[in-house]
């Protein structure tokens, strides 16, 4: 089981801020594929990975990063702080 968090328009498209997911995905990219296969709203959120960022256990990561041992995955658009 892994916690998956969504922020900004990713959260809005998927319609929830977080969920717990049972997954066998080995990498972030595999998890994205799995989510895309679920429902239209996931396809809408994950349509263009170049406009998305991912953090694993609160550290920025790449989409080919392994999920082994990871407890929290977060998906969000490029940040616009400051």
């Amino acid at each position, binding site marked *: 089981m892994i916690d998956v*968090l969504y*922020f*900004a*328009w990713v*959260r809005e498209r998927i319609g929830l801020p977080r969920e717990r997911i049972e997954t066998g995905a080995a990498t972030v990219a595999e998890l994205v594929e799995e989510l895309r296969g679920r429902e239209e709203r996931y396809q809408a959120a994950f349509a263009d990975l170049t406009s998305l960022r991912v*953090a694993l256990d*609160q*550290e*920025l990561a790449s989409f080919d990063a392994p999920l082994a041992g990871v407890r*929290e995955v*977060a998906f*969000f*658009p*490029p*940040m*616009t*702080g*400051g």
Partner: protein
Amino acid sequence: MRIAVQAEPFDLGAEVSAFTAGVRGAGAVVSFTGLVRDEGGSLSGMEIEHYPGMTGKAISGIAAEAVARWNLVDALVIHRYGKLAPGEAIMMVATAALHRGDAFAAAEYLMDYLKSRAPFWKKELSAGGEAWVAAKDSDEDALKRW
């Protein structure tokens, strides 16, 4: 080094005063403050979302890097989230160093990294509706100079 992530407004003048009073030995203090622009009156406000579990960690990492790289006497970062009105301060950084070049460079570095590497997302609110602020290529490019 103080990092604050908060919904409440902060008192810019009091923060700059207190920071400066605490850095005896430094010769230069730089502060930066980001304000909600009113975009010619079209904006009614801004809403800032963040990633509570990551924000403090990310900012601390960026600030520690700046302190080490420019040998800062001290650094301060305050960043708000939630709803803000035009003209309100969104965030501030302050840096203190022996010489002005280091204080300026560290403050610009902090801003460039906070902009693109701290987990905040801005949404502009106007009479016409809401719109997430898109990240600018120029902000990502700004990181390359460091």
